[in-house]
Protein backbone atom coordinates (compact mmCIF):
# COMPACT_ATOMS: atom_id res chain seq x y z
CA UNK A 1 0.00 0.00 0.00
CA UNK A 2 1.15 3.46 -0.80
CA UNK A 3 0.81 5.67 2.20
CA UNK A 4 2.29 8.84 0.85
CA UNK A 5 -1.07 10.52 0.36
CA UNK A 6 -2.38 9.54 3.75
CA UNK A 7 -2.99 12.08 6.47
CA UNK A 8 -0.88 12.09 9.58
CA UNK A 9 -3.82 10.87 11.61
CA UNK A 10 -4.44 7.97 9.22
CA UNK A 11 -0.80 7.05 9.37
CA UNK A 12 -0.92 7.04 13.13
CA UNK A 13 -3.94 4.77 13.07
CA UNK A 14 -2.08 2.41 10.77
CA UNK A 15 0.96 2.54 12.97
CA UNK A 16 -1.23 1.48 15.85
CA UNK A 17 -1.85 -1.60 13.68
CA UNK A 18 1.89 -2.02 13.34
CA UNK A 19 2.00 -1.09 9.69
CA UNK A 20 5.63 -0.54 8.93
CA UNK A 21 4.85 1.16 5.64
CA UNK A 22 2.87 3.85 7.43
CA UNK A 23 5.69 4.34 9.87
CA UNK A 24 8.14 4.58 7.03
CA UNK A 25 6.08 7.29 5.41
CA UNK A 26 5.74 9.25 8.60
CA UNK A 27 9.46 9.02 9.12
CA UNK A 28 10.17 10.40 5.68
CA UNK A 29 7.62 13.11 6.09
CA UNK A 30 8.93 14.67 9.23
CA UNK A 31 12.30 13.31 10.15
CA UNK A 32 14.11 16.42 9.02
CA UNK A 33 11.94 18.68 11.12
CA UNK A 34 12.31 16.36 14.06
CA UNK A 35 16.04 16.37 13.56
CA UNK A 36 16.13 20.13 13.17
CA UNK A 37 14.19 20.55 16.40
CA UNK A 38 16.45 18.23 18.35
CA UNK A 39 19.46 19.89 16.83
CA UNK A 40 18.15 23.27 17.79
CA UNK A 41 18.12 22.19 21.39
CA UNK A 42 21.28 20.11 21.52
CA UNK A 43 23.48 21.77 18.94
CA UNK A 44 24.99 18.38 18.34
CA UNK A 45 24.24 16.25 15.31
CA UNK A 46 24.98 12.92 16.96
CA UNK A 47 22.85 13.68 19.95
CA UNK A 48 20.08 14.99 17.74
CA UNK A 49 20.07 11.77 15.74
CA UNK A 50 19.72 9.78 18.93
CA UNK A 51 16.73 11.89 19.84
CA UNK A 52 15.19 11.35 16.42
CA UNK A 53 15.58 7.61 16.84
CA UNK A 54 14.15 7.71 20.32
CA UNK A 55 11.17 9.81 19.32
CA UNK A 56 10.28 7.58 16.39
CA UNK A 57 10.76 4.35 18.27
CA UNK A 58 8.50 5.63 21.03
CA UNK A 59 6.02 6.71 18.44
CA UNK A 60 6.02 3.16 17.08
CA UNK A 61 5.67 1.65 20.51
CA UNK A 62 3.08 4.03 21.83
CA UNK A 63 1.14 5.65 19.00
CA UNK A 64 -1.77 6.08 21.38
CA UNK A 65 0.13 8.88 23.07
CA UNK A 66 -0.98 11.08 20.27
CA UNK A 67 -4.56 12.16 20.72
CA UNK A 68 -5.93 13.74 17.61
CA UNK A 69 -8.45 15.88 19.42
CA UNK A 70 -5.71 17.70 21.23
CA UNK A 71 -4.19 19.23 18.17
CA UNK A 72 -2.14 18.79 15.08
CA UNK A 73 0.15 15.84 14.84
CA UNK A 74 3.18 17.84 13.83
CA UNK A 75 2.83 20.15 16.81
CA UNK A 76 2.66 17.16 19.09
CA UNK A 77 5.57 15.40 17.42
CA UNK A 78 7.87 18.39 17.59
CA UNK A 79 6.84 19.08 21.14
CA UNK A 80 7.72 15.53 22.11
CA UNK A 81 11.01 15.96 20.31
CA UNK A 82 11.78 19.18 22.08
CA UNK A 83 10.97 17.63 25.44
CA UNK A 84 13.09 14.61 24.76
CA UNK A 85 16.00 16.80 23.71
CA UNK A 86 15.64 18.98 26.80
CA UNK A 87 15.72 15.83 28.90
CA UNK A 88 18.93 14.90 27.14
CA UNK A 89 20.48 18.27 27.90
CA UNK A 90 19.55 17.92 31.52
CA UNK A 91 20.87 14.39 31.76
CA UNK A 92 24.18 15.62 30.46
CA UNK A 93 24.29 18.21 33.14
CA UNK A 94 23.73 21.69 32.05
CA UNK A 95 26.75 23.32 30.63
CA UNK A 96 27.23 27.02 30.74
CA UNK A 97 26.16 28.73 27.60
CA UNK A 98 28.95 30.55 25.92
CA UNK A 99 28.75 34.25 25.61
CA UNK A 100 28.85 33.99 21.87
CA UNK A 101 25.60 32.08 21.97
CA UNK A 102 23.96 34.82 23.87
CA UNK A 103 25.38 37.95 22.38
CA UNK A 104 23.95 40.15 19.80
CA UNK A 105 23.84 37.21 17.48
CA UNK A 106 20.90 35.33 18.75
CA UNK A 107 21.16 31.67 19.28
CA UNK A 108 18.43 30.92 16.87
CA UNK A 109 19.92 32.13 13.67
CA UNK A 110 17.12 30.13 12.32
CA UNK A 111 14.39 32.57 12.08
CA UNK A 112 15.82 34.89 9.57
CA UNK A 113 16.03 34.42 5.87
CA UNK A 114 15.98 30.75 5.19
CA UNK A 115 15.66 30.05 1.54
CA UNK A 116 17.71 26.87 1.47
CA UNK A 117 15.52 25.28 4.06
CA UNK A 118 12.39 26.11 2.25
CA UNK A 119 13.75 24.56 -0.87
CA UNK A 120 14.55 21.45 1.06
CA UNK A 121 11.15 21.43 2.64
CA UNK A 122 9.67 19.34 -0.09
CA UNK A 123 11.59 16.53 1.46
CA UNK A 124 8.89 16.28 3.99
CA UNK A 125 6.35 16.88 1.36
CA UNK A 126 3.84 18.94 3.23
CA UNK A 127 3.36 22.10 1.31
CA UNK A 128 1.08 23.41 3.98
CA UNK A 129 3.96 23.49 6.40
CA UNK A 130 5.92 25.95 4.34
CA UNK A 131 3.35 28.61 5.10
CA UNK A 132 3.11 27.62 8.70
CA UNK A 133 6.83 27.69 9.14
CA UNK A 134 7.01 31.09 7.60
CA UNK A 135 4.17 32.33 9.79
CA UNK A 136 5.98 31.24 12.92
CA UNK A 137 9.21 32.72 11.71
CA UNK A 138 7.50 35.98 10.90
CA UNK A 139 5.89 36.11 14.31
CA UNK A 140 9.25 35.55 15.97
CA UNK A 141 10.90 38.14 13.79
CA UNK A 142 8.42 40.71 14.93
CA UNK A 143 9.30 40.24 18.55
CA UNK A 144 11.82 42.55 20.14
CA UNK A 145 15.07 40.59 20.18
CA UNK A 146 15.30 40.63 23.96
CA UNK A 147 11.89 39.06 24.32
CA UNK A 148 12.54 36.51 21.66
CA UNK A 149 15.88 35.53 23.15
CA UNK A 150 14.34 34.99 26.57
CA UNK A 151 11.56 32.83 25.19
CA UNK A 152 13.88 30.79 23.04
CA UNK A 153 16.35 30.20 25.83
CA UNK A 154 13.52 28.89 27.93
CA UNK A 155 11.90 26.80 25.25
CA UNK A 156 14.85 25.50 23.30
CA UNK A 157 17.49 25.40 25.97
CA UNK A 158 15.34 24.46 28.90
CA UNK A 159 16.52 27.30 31.07
CA UNK A 160 14.39 28.65 33.86
CA UNK A 161 13.68 32.32 34.10
CA UNK A 162 16.18 32.63 36.91
CA UNK A 163 18.84 30.89 34.85
CA UNK A 164 18.14 33.12 31.91
CA UNK A 165 18.51 36.15 34.14
CA UNK A 166 21.84 34.81 35.25
CA UNK A 167 23.30 34.02 31.87
CA UNK A 168 22.08 37.29 30.42
CA UNK A 169 23.18 39.21 33.49
CA UNK A 170 19.78 40.81 33.58
CA UNK A 171 17.45 41.28 36.53
CA UNK A 172 15.00 38.43 36.98
CA UNK A 173 12.06 40.80 36.95
CA UNK A 174 13.13 42.06 33.56
CA UNK A 175 13.34 38.53 32.19
CA UNK A 176 9.91 37.70 33.52
CA UNK A 177 8.50 40.78 31.88
CA UNK A 178 10.16 39.97 28.57
CA UNK A 179 8.78 36.48 28.61
CA UNK A 180 5.28 37.58 29.48
CA UNK A 181 5.17 40.32 26.91
CA UNK A 182 6.82 38.20 24.27
CA UNK A 183 4.52 35.27 24.79
CA UNK A 184 1.49 37.50 24.56
CA UNK A 185 2.68 39.08 21.36
CA UNK A 186 3.49 35.72 19.88
CA UNK A 187 0.10 34.45 20.73
CA UNK A 188 -1.61 37.36 19.14
CA UNK A 189 0.57 37.05 16.07
CA UNK A 190 -0.06 33.35 15.68
CA UNK A 191 -3.70 33.26 16.53
CA UNK A 192 -5.80 32.83 13.48
CA UNK A 193 -2.97 31.32 11.51
CA UNK A 194 -4.83 28.35 10.27
CA UNK A 195 -3.61 25.10 11.61
CA UNK A 196 -0.80 26.32 13.75
CA UNK A 197 -2.60 26.69 16.98
CA UNK A 198 -5.63 24.65 17.65
CA UNK A 199 -6.68 25.10 21.19
CA UNK A 200 -10.13 23.98 20.23
CA UNK A 201 -9.95 20.85 22.28
CA UNK A 202 -10.69 20.96 25.95
CA UNK A 203 -7.45 21.35 27.84
CA UNK A 204 -6.09 18.67 30.02
CA UNK A 205 -7.43 18.87 33.48
CA UNK A 206 -4.17 20.18 34.71
CA UNK A 207 -0.69 20.50 33.47
CA UNK A 208 2.04 18.17 34.56
CA UNK A 209 3.72 19.47 37.61
CA UNK A 210 6.31 22.04 36.81
CA UNK A 211 6.51 21.25 33.18
CA UNK A 212 3.42 22.11 31.34
CA UNK A 213 4.62 21.43 27.84
CA UNK A 214 2.03 19.43 26.07
CA UNK A 215 2.99 16.16 24.61
CA UNK A 216 5.55 15.42 27.20
CA UNK A 217 6.22 11.82 26.53
CA UNK A 218 7.34 10.94 30.00
Amino acid at each position, binding site marked *: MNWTESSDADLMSAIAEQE*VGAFDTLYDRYHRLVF*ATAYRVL*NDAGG*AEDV*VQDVYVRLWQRPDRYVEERGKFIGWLLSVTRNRAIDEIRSRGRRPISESQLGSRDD*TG*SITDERPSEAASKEFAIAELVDQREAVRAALRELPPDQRAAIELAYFK*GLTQAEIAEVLATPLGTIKTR*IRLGMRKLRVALEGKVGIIEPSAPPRRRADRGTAEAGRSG
Partner: protein
Amino acid sequence: MTESETREEILHDQAAELLEGYALGALEPAEAAMVDEHLEEGCEDCEQEVSGLVHMLQALPLASRLVAPPSDDLKVRVLDAIQLDATETNTSSATMTRRDERVPIPISSRGWMTQRVQGVAAAFGIIAIGGLLAWAIVLQGQVNDLEGENSALASAMQVRPAAVSDGGATNVSVANALFTLTGEQSSSLQFISSQSVDARARLMWDPDEALFVLAATGLDPTPGSGAYIVWVETPDGPVQLARLYVDQSGASIVDGTTDLALAQVDVMTITHEDDPTTSTPTGATLLTFSR
Protein backbone atom coordinates in the same frame (compact mmCIF):
# COMPACT_ATOMS: atom_id res chain seq x y z
CA MET B 1 -15.96 32.31 53.40
CA THR B 2 -15.21 35.79 52.28
CA GLU B 3 -11.76 35.42 53.62
CA SER B 4 -11.30 32.21 51.66
CA GLU B 5 -12.44 33.79 48.43
CA THR B 6 -10.02 36.57 48.96
CA ARG B 7 -7.22 34.14 49.45
CA GLU B 8 -8.21 32.37 46.26
CA GLU B 9 -8.37 35.63 44.41
CA ILE B 10 -4.92 36.50 45.56
CA LEU B 11 -3.67 33.11 44.54
CA HIS B 12 -5.34 33.54 41.20
CA ASP B 13 -3.71 36.88 40.62
CA GLN B 14 -0.34 35.51 41.56
CA ALA B 15 -0.72 32.44 39.41
CA ALA B 16 -1.99 34.43 36.47
CA GLU B 17 1.26 36.33 36.49
CA LEU B 18 3.18 33.10 36.15
CA LEU B 19 1.32 31.28 33.44
CA GLU B 20 3.66 32.19 30.59
CA GLY B 21 6.65 30.93 32.51
CA TYR B 22 4.65 27.92 33.57
CA ALA B 23 3.75 26.98 30.03
CA LEU B 24 7.41 27.32 29.13
CA GLY B 25 8.45 25.13 32.03
CA ALA B 26 10.68 27.99 33.09
CA LEU B 27 9.45 28.60 36.61
CA GLU B 28 11.30 27.82 39.77
CA PRO B 29 9.88 24.80 41.61
CA ALA B 30 8.08 26.85 44.23
CA GLU B 31 6.43 29.00 41.61
CA ALA B 32 5.40 25.99 39.56
CA ALA B 33 3.95 24.39 42.65
CA MET B 34 1.88 27.47 43.27
CA VAL B 35 0.45 27.38 39.78
CA ASP B 36 -0.18 23.66 40.11
CA GLU B 37 -2.06 24.26 43.28
CA HIS B 38 -4.14 26.95 41.69
CA LEU B 39 -4.97 24.79 38.69
CA GLU B 40 -5.85 21.90 40.93
CA GLU B 41 -8.38 24.12 42.57
CA GLY B 42 -10.10 24.15 39.22
CA CYS B 43 -9.53 27.62 37.84
CA GLU B 44 -10.84 27.23 34.34
CA ASP B 45 -9.62 30.60 33.15
CA CYS B 46 -6.06 29.81 34.02
CA GLU B 47 -6.32 26.30 32.66
CA GLN B 48 -7.60 27.66 29.41
CA GLU B 49 -4.81 30.16 29.32
CA VAL B 50 -2.14 27.56 29.92
CA SER B 51 -3.62 25.34 27.28
CA GLY B 52 -3.55 28.13 24.74
CA LEU B 53 0.03 29.01 25.58
CA VAL B 54 1.15 25.41 25.37
CA HIS B 55 -0.45 25.03 21.97
CA MET B 56 1.25 28.17 20.82
CA LEU B 57 4.62 26.89 21.98
CA GLN B 58 4.12 23.74 19.99
CA ALA B 59 4.38 25.84 16.88
CA LEU B 60 7.81 27.23 17.70
CA PRO B 61 9.87 24.25 16.55
CA LEU B 62 8.36 24.67 13.11
CA ALA B 63 10.59 27.69 12.71
CA SER B 64 13.77 25.72 13.28
CA ARG B 65 16.33 25.93 10.57
CA LEU B 66 16.54 22.77 8.55
CA VAL B 67 20.13 21.95 9.12
CA ALA B 68 21.87 19.36 7.03
CA PRO B 69 19.82 16.19 7.11
CA PRO B 70 20.59 13.41 9.53
CA SER B 71 22.84 10.67 8.29
CA ASP B 72 21.44 8.09 5.93
CA ASP B 73 21.92 5.23 8.31
CA LEU B 74 19.64 6.83 10.87
CA LYS B 75 16.57 5.54 9.11
CA VAL B 76 18.08 2.09 8.95
CA ARG B 77 18.71 2.25 12.67
CA VAL B 78 15.19 3.39 13.39
CA LEU B 79 13.58 0.74 11.22
CA ASP B 80 15.79 -1.92 12.71
CA ALA B 81 14.81 -0.78 16.16
CA ILE B 82 11.10 -0.88 15.55
CA GLN B 83 11.21 -4.21 13.80
CA LEU B 84 13.28 -5.67 16.54
CA ASP B 85 10.66 -4.29 18.84
CA ALA B 86 7.93 -5.92 16.81
CA THR B 87 9.57 -9.32 17.10
CA GLU B 88 10.17 -8.98 20.78
CA THR B 89 6.74 -7.83 21.74
CA ASN B 90 4.72 -9.80 19.29
CA THR B 91 5.18 -13.38 18.36
CA SER B 92 2.14 -13.78 16.20
CA SER B 93 2.56 -15.04 12.69
CA ALA B 94 1.04 -11.85 11.39
CA THR B 95 3.92 -9.95 12.82
CA MET B 96 6.38 -12.30 11.25
CA THR B 97 4.72 -11.72 7.93
CA ARG B 98 5.12 -8.04 8.35
CA ARG B 99 8.73 -8.52 9.10
CA ASP B 100 9.09 -10.34 5.84
CA GLU B 101 7.38 -7.47 4.13
CA ARG B 102 9.87 -5.07 5.49
CA VAL B 103 9.80 -2.07 3.29
CA PRO B 104 12.79 -1.18 1.25
CA ILE B 105 14.67 1.69 2.69
CA PRO B 106 14.92 4.55 0.31
CA ILE B 107 18.05 6.52 0.47
CA SER B 108 16.75 9.98 0.59
CA SER B 109 19.69 11.54 -1.09
CA ARG B 110 19.86 9.06 -3.91
CA GLY B 111 19.99 10.77 -7.18
CA TRP B 112 21.17 14.10 -6.11
CA MET B 113 24.31 13.65 -8.10
CA THR B 114 22.45 12.79 -11.21
CA GLN B 115 21.55 16.39 -11.51
CA ARG B 116 23.78 19.03 -12.77
CA VAL B 117 24.84 21.96 -10.82
CA GLN B 118 23.55 24.85 -12.72
CA GLY B 119 24.43 28.44 -12.92
CA VAL B 120 24.40 29.91 -9.63
CA ALA B 121 23.73 32.63 -7.24
CA ALA B 122 25.62 32.03 -4.11
CA ALA B 123 24.55 32.48 -0.58
CA PHE B 124 26.56 31.61 2.43
CA GLY B 125 25.32 30.72 5.80
CA ILE B 126 26.87 29.58 8.95
CA ILE B 127 25.70 27.04 11.40
CA ALA B 128 27.28 25.72 14.50
CA ILE B 129 27.38 22.03 15.14
CA GLY B 130 28.40 20.38 18.34
CA GLY B 131 30.55 23.11 19.62
CA LEU B 132 32.44 23.40 16.41
CA LEU B 133 32.05 26.01 13.84
CA ALA B 134 30.35 24.89 10.74
CA TRP B 135 29.72 26.56 7.48
CA ALA B 136 26.75 25.87 5.39
CA ILE B 137 27.35 26.89 1.89
CA VAL B 138 24.43 27.17 -0.35
CA LEU B 139 24.65 27.45 -4.05
CA GLN B 140 21.40 28.20 -5.65
CA GLY B 141 21.12 27.36 -9.26
CA GLN B 142 18.85 28.25 -12.05
CA VAL B 143 16.77 25.26 -12.89
CA ASN B 144 15.67 26.54 -16.19
CA ASP B 145 19.04 26.84 -17.75
CA LEU B 146 20.48 23.41 -17.81
CA GLU B 147 23.29 24.15 -20.16
CA GLY B 148 24.33 26.94 -17.91
CA GLU B 149 25.96 29.04 -20.53
CA ASN B 150 27.32 31.41 -18.04
CA SER B 151 23.88 32.19 -16.94
CA ALA B 152 24.98 32.37 -13.41
CA LEU B 153 23.50 35.08 -11.41
CA ALA B 154 25.90 37.48 -9.95
CA SER B 155 24.53 38.19 -6.62
CA ALA B 156 25.68 39.52 -3.39
CA MET B 157 26.18 36.87 -0.88
CA GLN B 158 23.83 36.81 1.98
CA VAL B 159 25.39 36.22 5.29
CA ARG B 160 23.33 34.84 8.04
CA PRO B 161 24.93 35.26 11.39
CA ALA B 162 24.62 32.39 13.73
CA ALA B 163 25.94 31.18 16.99
CA VAL B 164 29.52 30.17 17.32
CA SER B 165 29.93 27.84 20.18
CA ASP B 166 33.28 27.62 21.78
CA GLY B 167 32.79 24.43 23.70
CA GLY B 168 35.86 22.30 23.52
CA ALA B 169 36.84 23.40 20.11
CA THR B 170 40.16 24.95 20.81
CA ASN B 171 42.11 21.81 20.18
CA VAL B 172 40.50 21.07 16.92
CA SER B 173 42.46 21.91 13.89
CA VAL B 174 41.28 21.31 10.42
CA ALA B 175 43.89 22.16 7.94
CA ASN B 176 42.16 21.28 4.82
CA ALA B 177 38.68 20.42 3.86
CA LEU B 178 37.91 19.02 0.50
CA PHE B 179 34.52 18.18 -0.74
CA THR B 180 34.17 15.52 -3.29
CA LEU B 181 31.12 14.50 -5.15
CA THR B 182 31.95 11.34 -6.91
CA GLY B 183 29.16 8.85 -6.70
CA GLU B 184 25.48 8.96 -7.23
CA GLN B 185 24.80 7.79 -3.74
CA SER B 186 27.62 9.51 -2.07
CA SER B 187 25.85 11.76 0.30
CA SER B 188 27.91 11.68 3.41
CA LEU B 189 31.21 13.16 2.53
CA GLN B 190 34.23 13.13 4.68
CA PHE B 191 36.81 15.78 5.00
CA ILE B 192 40.24 14.99 3.80
CA SER B 193 41.97 16.30 6.80
CA SER B 194 45.20 15.46 8.48
CA GLN B 195 44.53 16.67 11.96
CA SER B 196 40.85 16.67 12.27
CA VAL B 197 39.35 15.08 15.30
CA ASP B 198 35.77 15.16 14.32
CA ALA B 199 35.48 16.93 11.06
CA ARG B 200 32.97 15.94 8.50
CA ALA B 201 30.82 17.34 5.84
CA ARG B 202 27.37 16.63 4.66
CA LEU B 203 25.84 17.40 1.40
CA MET B 204 22.28 17.81 0.41
CA TRP B 205 21.08 18.29 -3.07
CA ASP B 206 17.62 19.23 -4.06
CA PRO B 207 17.34 18.62 -7.79
CA ASP B 208 14.01 20.34 -8.12
CA GLU B 209 15.22 23.53 -6.59
CA ALA B 210 18.74 23.09 -7.85
CA LEU B 211 19.86 23.81 -4.42
CA PHE B 212 23.08 22.57 -3.05
CA VAL B 213 23.78 22.70 0.64
CA LEU B 214 27.13 21.91 2.05
CA ALA B 215 27.78 21.84 5.76
CA ALA B 216 31.25 21.39 7.10
CA THR B 217 31.99 20.82 10.73
CA GLY B 218 35.27 20.78 12.49
CA LEU B 219 36.58 24.12 11.48
CA ASP B 220 38.27 25.91 14.29
CA PRO B 221 36.03 28.66 15.62
CA THR B 222 38.60 30.19 17.92
CA PRO B 223 38.62 33.92 17.38
CA GLY B 224 41.71 34.96 15.54
CA SER B 225 42.52 31.43 14.51
CA GLY B 226 42.79 32.42 10.90
CA ALA B 227 40.64 32.26 7.90
CA TYR B 228 39.34 29.51 5.72
CA ILE B 229 39.24 29.98 2.04
CA VAL B 230 36.60 28.49 -0.16
CA TRP B 231 38.02 27.81 -3.57
CA VAL B 232 36.37 26.64 -6.67
CA GLU B 233 38.10 25.11 -9.63
CA THR B 234 37.19 26.74 -12.87
CA PRO B 235 38.48 26.05 -16.36
CA ASP B 236 40.80 28.96 -15.79
CA GLY B 237 42.16 27.61 -12.57
CA PRO B 238 41.32 27.98 -8.92
CA VAL B 239 39.32 30.98 -7.89
CA GLN B 240 38.80 32.18 -4.39
CA LEU B 241 35.13 32.30 -3.74
CA ALA B 242 34.97 33.38 -0.15
CA ARG B 243 36.94 33.87 2.97
CA LEU B 244 35.48 32.69 6.24
CA TYR B 245 36.77 33.57 9.64
CA VAL B 246 35.91 34.36 13.19
CA ASP B 247 37.03 37.76 14.28
CA GLN B 248 38.39 38.75 17.67
CA SER B 249 34.99 39.50 19.02
CA GLY B 250 33.80 36.04 18.11
CA ALA B 251 31.69 37.14 15.20
CA SER B 252 31.52 34.92 12.16
CA ILE B 253 32.47 36.71 9.02
CA VAL B 254 32.10 35.73 5.43
CA ASP B 255 33.83 37.88 2.87
CA GLY B 256 33.40 37.65 -0.82
CA THR B 257 31.07 37.97 -3.69
CA THR B 258 30.95 36.06 -6.88
CA ASP B 259 29.89 36.46 -10.41
CA LEU B 260 31.34 33.14 -11.38
CA ALA B 261 29.51 30.74 -13.54
CA LEU B 262 29.52 28.00 -11.04
CA ALA B 263 28.10 25.64 -13.57
CA GLN B 264 31.67 25.30 -14.65
CA VAL B 265 32.84 24.35 -11.22
CA ASP B 266 34.20 20.89 -10.80
CA VAL B 267 35.74 21.03 -7.40
CA MET B 268 35.24 23.04 -4.34
CA THR B 269 37.90 23.16 -1.70
CA ILE B 270 38.23 24.72 1.68
CA THR B 271 41.70 25.39 2.91
CA HIS B 272 43.10 27.07 5.92
CA GLU B 273 44.79 30.30 5.10
CA ASP B 274 47.74 29.70 7.37
CA ASP B 275 48.49 26.18 6.32
CA PRO B 276 51.40 26.34 3.89
CA THR B 277 50.67 22.92 2.49
CA THR B 278 47.25 23.90 1.39
CA SER B 279 47.70 27.46 0.36
CA THR B 280 46.26 26.58 -2.97
CA PRO B 281 43.51 24.11 -3.54
CA THR B 282 44.66 20.68 -4.45
CA GLY B 283 41.28 19.20 -4.92
CA ALA B 284 41.38 19.18 -8.65
CA THR B 285 44.01 16.55 -8.77
CA LEU B 286 42.74 14.52 -5.92
CA LEU B 287 39.06 14.59 -6.29
CA THR B 288 36.60 14.97 -8.99
CA PHE B 289 33.13 16.22 -9.07
CA SER B 290 31.36 14.09 -11.56
CA ARG B 291 28.43 15.52 -13.34
